[in-house]
């Protein structure tokens, strides 16, 4: 299944691995920040309701 990359095996595989790693970090960081912000917002809104 794996194509024969010949003499450029390292270059091609490292390009794909590096790109997928960078995209994975970007997506993971976006999800992590979104979840943290949503949790903090819910806590702040709950505190506000309790004060009322």
């Amino acid at each position, binding site marked *: 299944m794996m194509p024969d990359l010949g003499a450029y095996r390292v*270059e091609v595989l490292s*390009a794909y691995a590096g*790109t997928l790693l960078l995209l994975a970090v970007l997506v993971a960081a976006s999800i992590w920040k979104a979840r943290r*912000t949503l949790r*903090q917002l819910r806590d702040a809104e709950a505190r506000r309701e309790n004060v009322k």
Partner: protein
Amino acid sequence: MSIWEYANPRKFMALSGAVLPWVSAAAAIVLVGGLIWGFFFTPDDFRQGSTVKIIYLHVPAAIMATSVWFMMLVTSLIWLIRRHHVSALAAKAAAPVGMVFTLIGLFTGAVWGQPMWGSWWEWDPRLTAFLILFLFYLGYIALWEAVENPDAAADLTSVLCLVGTVFAVISRYAILFWNQGLHQGASLSMDAEENVADVFAYPLWTSIGGFFLLFLALVLYRTRTEIRARRLQALVQRERMA
């Protein structure tokens, strides 16, 4: 009905919440499909060998790197002219995505350039402008973090975006401005002589579509986060003042 209605954070959150799952699913399918097609089911180039498979990463990332900056330019101008907060937050949300695309373009370009040019890097007009664009992305993100007042940060980053647009334009069109440097001309062109062969072009267009949809999904998702962060900031300030 006007597009400006979506400058209202509530309307933006409602619309983006509805479309985000569909855009995310489409991004995953098209991006993975395009990369699998390009990596596994395309032949080697007669001159570049298997390194041609890097085109499915390098070209979409480079196109999106400059396109994201142009999107930030439009949203920054909307902020400066019409003062819509969602617009400024969309630009802020897009910057890290554009920075990563630029980094991917630089990295894959270096990895591709070494076996083809015999060099990881050349101070070629297009490459240099692209590196400066990457530095502008870093500066833009740092400026947002450095200025505490969000409106002042939006003003300053919008001006920085206007300045950086010069390098976004140069990095995309350098090949037309200067007839020098190692970087080749456009891979995709209306000119049949210049355009890559169909066997490479179809998966390449699919990968470009995948990168675009990934950007769209991420910018919607991250803008929603920025809107929530702004609301959180307002609530915390009210708590402190109470």
